[in-house]
């Protein structure tokens, strides 16, 4: 064991916690090493002096007094129940005394309270009968309003259709035409729009679609007049043929002079002339299958009379 190691063990040796063989080795070293002897005795001396130090003077009585005062305060705080908890326990006791304790009675009580509540609600919360009349009045007013709104919407739909015819592209105008065919009973304004499209639209296809759209409504005077007017101005053979066939179909006898002129006009398309000739033939032979078609008072059939 060297000096450093011996001195490292001093504290344990002093405490008596050094292992037996280490203690023996340490003692053996001490016996032969004056340096370590001096060091050891110095350590022992200072330790002895330190431990001889009397414990500090007694604390003053103030410490004990203060401590027990604090202890009493804390004990009282721990003992005393907070006023809130006290009030709550009193409330609990009050309600416990007030309410039935057996579950069956509690259930019955709850049911009774529910029944009373439902009865009271039914008795006092029904709306007074006098309120019915104003409601009806309001209903009428509302219905009137709804009717007005519906009319407005309808007008707006027509306007939209008209504006579409004037502004949109060819394909959109055709779409609008075809859409008017779906209308069971388009109003006069829509029909006028379609007729003017037939007369004025630059596109052959739109004009053809317009003829088609008017097919179901050719019993109306405005349509027939429109068709006649359009035929006099029409230059495209396809549209001319379509108009001629439609007018022949609906037996528009006012078209006969026009058909005759077209069929003789050398400048018109051969197909148009053939179609006009066929139309003339149709108009001149009264249809046996459909005699009622001439019942239109605005177009008294001369053939019948």
């Amino acid at each position: 064991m060297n000096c450093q190691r011996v001195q490292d063990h001093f504290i344990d040796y002093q405490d008596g916690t050094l292992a037996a063989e280490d203690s023996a080795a340490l003692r053996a070293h001490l016996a032969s090493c004056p340096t370590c002897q001096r060091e050891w005795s110095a350590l022992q001396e200072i330790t002895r002096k330190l431990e001889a130090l009397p414990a500090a003077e007694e604390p003053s009585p103030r410490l004990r007094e203060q401590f027990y005062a604090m202890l009493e305060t804390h004990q009282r705080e721990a003992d005393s129940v907070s006023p809130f908890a006290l009030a709550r326990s009193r409330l609990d006791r009050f309600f416990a005394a007030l309410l039935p304790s057996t579950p069956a009675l509690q259930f019955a009580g709850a049911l009774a309270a529910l029944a009373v509540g439902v009865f009271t609600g039914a008795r006092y919360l029904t709306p007074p009968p006098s309120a019915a009349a104003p409601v009806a009045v309001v209903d009428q007013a509302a219905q009137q309003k709804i009717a007005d709104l519906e009319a407005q919407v309808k007008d707006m739909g027509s306007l939209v259709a008209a504006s579409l015819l004037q502004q949109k592209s060819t394909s959109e105008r055709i779409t609008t035409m075809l859409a008017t065919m779906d209308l069971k009973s388009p109003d006069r304004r829509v029909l006028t729009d379609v007729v003017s499209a037939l007369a004025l639209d630059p596109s052959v296809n739109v004009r053809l679609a317009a003829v088609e759209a008017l097919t179901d409504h050719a019993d109306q005077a405005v349509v027939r007049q429109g068709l006649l007017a359009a035929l006099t101005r029409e230059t495209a053979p396809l549209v001319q043929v379509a108009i001629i066939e439609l007018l022949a179909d609906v037996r528009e006898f006012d078209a006969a002079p026009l058909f005759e002129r077209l069929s003789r006009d050398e400048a018109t398309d051969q197909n148009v002339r053939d179609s006009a000739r066929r139309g003339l033939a149709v108009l001149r032979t009264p249809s046996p299958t459909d005699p009622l078609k001439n019942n239109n008072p605005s177009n008294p059939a001369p053939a019948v009379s």
Partner: protein
Amino acid sequence: MFLASVTEFRVSSVASPVSLPVTVDADSDHELMIAVRAGEIRRLGELFERYHKPLYGFFVRLTNQPSASEDLVQIVFYRILKYRHTYRDEGKFSAWIYHLARKVAADHFRKHARTPTPADPTDFHDQPDQDPAPDTQAGTADDLALMRRALARVSHEHREVLVLARLQHLNHQEIARLLDCSVGAVKVRAHRALKELREVYFKIRKEQAA
């Protein structure tokens, strides 16, 4: 290593009247503290009777301020009450109370480090009221006064180890747990502390002789 040496205070070979009571019953301490934790606040009185003097000694040796030490003891017991619910079942009461005491002392030193009051313990020997009266400056009394002053001048870290080990008679395992370091580190520190104490002691003696 005996298990007892880990869990019990080492009984000092040198009789020291105000060190921990020789007959300390650790179980009893523990049971008392459990009772206090459970709400029997007054049982803390018994623990106070057992521990207030050792704690006072600890603080006086550490701070050299008797009046302040009384306050510090009071603070320790106040904290025991305040934090009694944190006391663990497996915990050893003496370890716990010294743990609290160290923290209280640390707070005290921190507070005094901020204030301009003479807090440096090395200045302590210049305070006349702590100097031994001239008629007692002879023989053993002189020696004790010298030692008291020497201890006051030792660095705080070393003084703490010396007080805990030599005056409060905690064993190295307990000190290691308190200081949160290894037992070996405590022994090294204890050895160095004794060396420093000896140097300071002889330096003061030389000064006095001069």
